[in-house]
């Protein structure tokens, strides 16, 4: 997927992305302060908005999945149903779900620690559980590119680690692409391959190991009242392998 000279915004251009390529097997994270246009860029990349100028080139055969930061579903939708809908694509009306697909849903619920909520309404879940559910659904639909708007916004440290490790594993083993926005910079520095930083109506692209990245991040997220320091190599976390 490529973006060329694209001006991003709803009516007025917020910033320009000059030349951005996202390759399979890569996690790209869009960083920036609140309201800088991260979600707008994500929606433009997913094809829900068109760029004001320039273009976004994406292979139309590629399947995508999109997860917004606020997911509005029907109040009478149940957790089990929500997952099954991931298999609805290209399914003729008379066809029901196979035993394999139902088993996959159950396995996912078990892995995500949501099995006891299978019969509950989606709206009854806590924000964090809901976020895990929709992420699981997106992964079940097996897209080529996964767009996530703040996928870990409501998650605790354990679940954040779980989700990022899940995504990383999925991207690497199946050669998929993830584009996400997030504010959990410590995690991002560890798990993403590339970073698009939006600051002062400009966008800059860094690979995660880039020597100037940390300074630029400190610049970007320091306000007039506080200073931020994302020290280099500070977040070398070790995860226990549960298997």
């Amino acid at each position: 997927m490529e973006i060329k000279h694209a001006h991003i915004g709803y009516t007025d251009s917020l910033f320009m992305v000059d030349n951005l390529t996202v390759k399979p097997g890569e996690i790209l994270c869009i960083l920036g302060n609140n309201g800088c246009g991260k979600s707008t860029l994500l929606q433009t990349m997913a094809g829900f908005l068109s760029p004001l100028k320039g273009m976004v080139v994406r292979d139309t055969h590629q399947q995508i999945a999109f997860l917004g930061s606020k997911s509005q579903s029907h109040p009478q939708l149940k957790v089990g149903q929500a997952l099954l809908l991931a298999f609805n694509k290209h399914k003729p009306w008379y066809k029901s779900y196979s035993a394999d697909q139902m088993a996959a849903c159950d396995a996912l619920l078990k892995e995500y620690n949501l099995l006891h909520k299978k019969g509950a309404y989606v709206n009854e879940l806590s924000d964090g559980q809901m976020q895990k559910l929709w992420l699981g659904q997106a992964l079940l639909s097996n897209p080529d590119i996964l767009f996530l708007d703040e996928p870990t916004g409501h998650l605790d440290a354990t679940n954040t680690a779980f989700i990022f490790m899940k995504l990383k594993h999925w991207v690497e083993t199946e050669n998929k692409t993830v584009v996400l926005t997030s504010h959990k910079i410590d995690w991002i520095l560890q798990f993403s391959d590339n970073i698009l930083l939006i600051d002062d109506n400009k966008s800059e692209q860094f690979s995660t190991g880039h020597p100037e990245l940390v300074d630029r991040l400190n610049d970007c997220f320091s306000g007039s009242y506080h200073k931020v320091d994302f020290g280099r190599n500070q977040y070398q976390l070790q995860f226990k392998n549960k298997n």
Partner: protein
Amino acid sequence: MVFGLLAFVVLSVAANIYFAGSSNVWGTDNAEYILFNLRLPKTLTCILCGMGLSTCGLLLQTFFKNPLAGPSVLGINSGAALGTAMVILFSEHIYLGYLWENVGFNYGVLIISSLTGALLVMAVIYTLSLAVKNQAILVIAGLMVGNIALAIVGVLQYYSQPDDLKNYILWTFGSVAGLSMNQVGIMAIIIVPTFLACIALSKQLDFMLLDNRTASALGFKSKTMSRRVLLLSSILAAICTAFCGPIGFVGIAVPYLSRILFAKELHLKLLIVNALLGASLILWADVLCHGIAGFRLPLNVVMALFGSPIVLLILFRYRRTKSLG
């Protein structure tokens, strides 16, 4: 549960044919005539109308992601009522052509006018839906548009003749009686294919339960489906309203209840279950219209009087599930 429902529907049909009307006709010479010319068309009307209105409600509740949505809430019924009022109240003042003069009270004109009214309201709501993304605002907008339609009906009523006014008021009480087999045929020709179209769209309807963007990424055609759902629901509401009057309650209560009682089902089965429930509800309401100690009551009154407590009862029964909607 599904077999129970089927048995219940059969029971409802039998009860409707046997009880809905004066009970001392059976065994007399007239029995056959009454069965085939009065009772059977009425029973079929109940079934078709119940199917149509409950399906319409289900579509709208899915589309608006709101269990409060329904043909009577969104002003579709009011739009259809406006179309019908135009015809009933002003029939003498407008020249309706050859058909009107030769066929008398012509249902064709009534249907077209009612459908136009319903579609007009839906067109306004659809146009708004392109600009406003908030479904709650759309429901309120529907209410307002319906209010405008009813206000125009009020103006028409104010300036109409007493006899026409009486006809119109009677129509607003709702009735499943008085249709000939031909008219029931017309209803069936429109309602049954529309219902089948909904069944064929069931997988796309399922997508409407999800967040719009998530669903779009999964292959949901948002714009086409919005148009289709609004068109199909307008057709269903308009045809039922034209023939039977503005029947409320079914369109909201039945889909809501089917979603509680058959919570595990997605649209393919839900549509069928919902239609069966809707049909049996009107069948029983019609029995009650005739049945109680010789009193005859209008359909809408029965529905509100007996239907609402039943819904309340079910809500209490299921109160443990916290967020029903």
